[in-house]
């Protein structure tokens, strides 16, 4: 560790210091809302955003903790996305917790720590720091899921997540152990080469299998998805949004780092396994989402489906080894597709959960499809933005979700056409068919909003006005969903599709 290292830690310091500050300021016996605390949390995320802004564009990469963390383009993108999600979650939580009477300092501390864990995960270059990030993130999230401790479903969600999650962590650790046994190293970079070594291969393959299982659990891919709907449904809605997006960002970034090493030595078996997982995940997510009656649960299942689409890109991802062993994925359409998809998913999903967190009533009620009936006419703006978020999640052109889907499916076709192997193209076709199925349940939201008469008791519903935090998140997500779908950077603000594309491309140039 040198002074040079500390510089590269700057983006991480924001949430960390903010969490400590909240502990110091908010730690007192008399419990009550303190308006300063969410502001501190926002300042923490703002610090990270400013840090990312100052460091970008990054020439090369900075290492910290003896190479355990690597602050490169990908790390910065992860920090950016996670802190956007964390800030949105914080803003939503202020209103949400106030209504539930649970506006406590610990909530923000935990959000900050989980965000910190996500960032560490996305920047890690060896198994130890990866595990550290994973656990920091997960432990905080276990508690956050059960934060509404007076509501059975919230507690149930927390316990379920904890039990299954710790099982997954165990798998992860076991895989790490096997890999250490096989390679004698904790570094990702020693993995690819070691897979060629026949003697230690069984150990490594089994180890990679366990690690893969751990990752798949975190992103909610089938067949390790069973926990997800229950957990997402029971958790406080802003946390559900943050889990669906932030965890995916962190896990996919880490997977990109690991796979970029493994794929250097083309391991076909892994692609085949991922192929099937992508397919099963899409089908399970979409089909199960069709049968849901609660919008929140539908979004949970659809989050599984999105994990499936993203896995398609993992299957077809390919990169180049540059001079002196540097790994460059900036030419990989698939890797870029993942990052862009995550961005699109982040804004649309935070927005959608933002609207839901506003509509939700005590005990998680008020989120059935029928509860949305005719709301498009009662709350014009909410109806409009919720429609846009649903359309973006469904991948309708003109929204960010379409650009993401276009890139993902495009990358699969790109990898497949012209080769003798038709499996990639087949996967793209199956993905598109799946997104057609997905359209059905997203459209049900729109139908409820606009094609159904207002429910009888709606006039007496008397929902409070949208709070400032919720409103801010919804409006920002709305603008983001449209602007990252179609916006041109006319004013050179660095905001729009093109700058984001360039950022994603640059982020993948220095994976090693």
């Amino acid at each position, binding site marked *: *560790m*040198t*002074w040079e290292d500390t510089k590269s830690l700057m983006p991480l310091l924001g949430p960390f210091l903010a969490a*400590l500050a909240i*502990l*110091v300021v908010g*730690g*007192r*016996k008399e419990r009550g809302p303190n308006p300063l605390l969410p502001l501190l949390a926002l300042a923490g995320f703002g610090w990270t955003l400013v840090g990312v802004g100052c460091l970008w564009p990054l020439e090369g990469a900075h290492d910290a903790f003896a190479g355990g963390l690597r602050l490169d383009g990908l790390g910065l993108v992860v920090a950016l996305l996670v802190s956007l999600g964390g800030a949105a979650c914080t803003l939503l939580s202020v209103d949400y917790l106030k209504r539930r009477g649970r506006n406590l300092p610990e909530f923000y501390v935990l959000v900050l720590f989980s965000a910190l864990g996500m960032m560490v995960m996305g920047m890690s270059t060896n198994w130890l720091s990866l595990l550290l990030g994973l656990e920091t993130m997960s432990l905080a999230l276990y508690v956050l899921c059960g934060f509404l401790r007076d509501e059975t479903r919230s507690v149930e969600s927390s316990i379920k997540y904890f039990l299954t999650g710790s099982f997954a962590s165990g798998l992860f650790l076991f895989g790490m152990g096997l890999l250490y046994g096989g390679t004698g190293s904790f570094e990702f970079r020693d993995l690819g080469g070691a897979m060629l070594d026949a003697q230690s*291969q*069984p150990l490594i*393959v089994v180890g990679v299998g366990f690690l893969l299982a751990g990752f798949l659990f975190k992103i909610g891919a089938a067949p390790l998805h069973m926990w997800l709907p229950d957990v997402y449904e029971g958790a406080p809605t802003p946390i559900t949004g943050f889990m669906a997006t932030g965890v995916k960002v962190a896990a996919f970034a880490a997977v990109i780092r690991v796979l970029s090493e493994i794929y250097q030595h083309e391991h076909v078996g892994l692609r085949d396994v991922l192929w099937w997982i992508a397919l099963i995940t899409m089908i399970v997510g979409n089909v199960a989402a069709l049968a849901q009656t609660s919008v929140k649960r539908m979004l949970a299942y659809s989050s599984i489906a999105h994990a499936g689409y993203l896995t398609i890109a993992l299957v077809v991802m390919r990169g180049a080894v540059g001079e002196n062993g540097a790994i460059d994925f900036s030419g990989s359409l698939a890797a870029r597709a993942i990052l862009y998809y995550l961005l699109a998913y982040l804004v649309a999903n935070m927005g959608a959960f933002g609207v839901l967190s506003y509509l939700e009533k005590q005990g998680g009620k008020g989120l059935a499809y029928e509860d949305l009936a005719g709301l498009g006419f009662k709350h014009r703006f909410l109806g409009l933005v919720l429609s846009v978020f649903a359309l973006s999640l469904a991948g309708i052109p003109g929204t960010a979700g379409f650009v993401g889907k276009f890139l993902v499916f495009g990358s699969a076709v790109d990898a497949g056409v012209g080769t003798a192997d038709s499996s990639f193209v087949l996967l793209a076709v199956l993905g598109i068919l799946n997104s057609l199925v997905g359209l059905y349940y997203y459209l049900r939201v729109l139908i409820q909003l606009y094609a159904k008469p207002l429910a009888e008791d709606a006039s007496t519903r008397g929902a409070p006005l949208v709070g400032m935090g919720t409103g801010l998140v919804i409006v920002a997500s709305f603008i983001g969903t449209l602007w990252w779908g179609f916006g041109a950077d006319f004013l050179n603000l660095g905001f729009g599709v093109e700058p984001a594309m360039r950022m994603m491309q640059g982020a993948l140039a220095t994976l090693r």
Partner: protein
Amino acid sequence: MEPSVLVSLLIVLGLAAAIPVVMVILGRAFGPKRPTEVKYSVYECGLEPPVDARRRFTVKFYEVAVLFVVFDVEVAFLFPWALLFKKSSGFLFFGEMIVFLGILGVGLFYVIKRGALEWE
């Protein structure tokens, strides 16, 4: 991977699964079953429990226990640090531990302010 490795792996897996199954089945099948009231009573050398063992304790026990574990384990990091201190680069090395202890300190501060250590 060599198929032979896989086969032996499968054999081991199969054995591992089969042994407990066989044991339990054998025990069920051949073990004599002569239940009496005494056999169903609590184990002989113990005492009759006065209350249900799964009753609820006050959360304060857990709090104290968890806090002890946390701070105690964290402090264990001081030992390797102390051993390496001589060979270290000096100030930065020292500073790192100060930061670490500072974080612990904030935690302790929070715990105290929050009243987690007060019994009443």
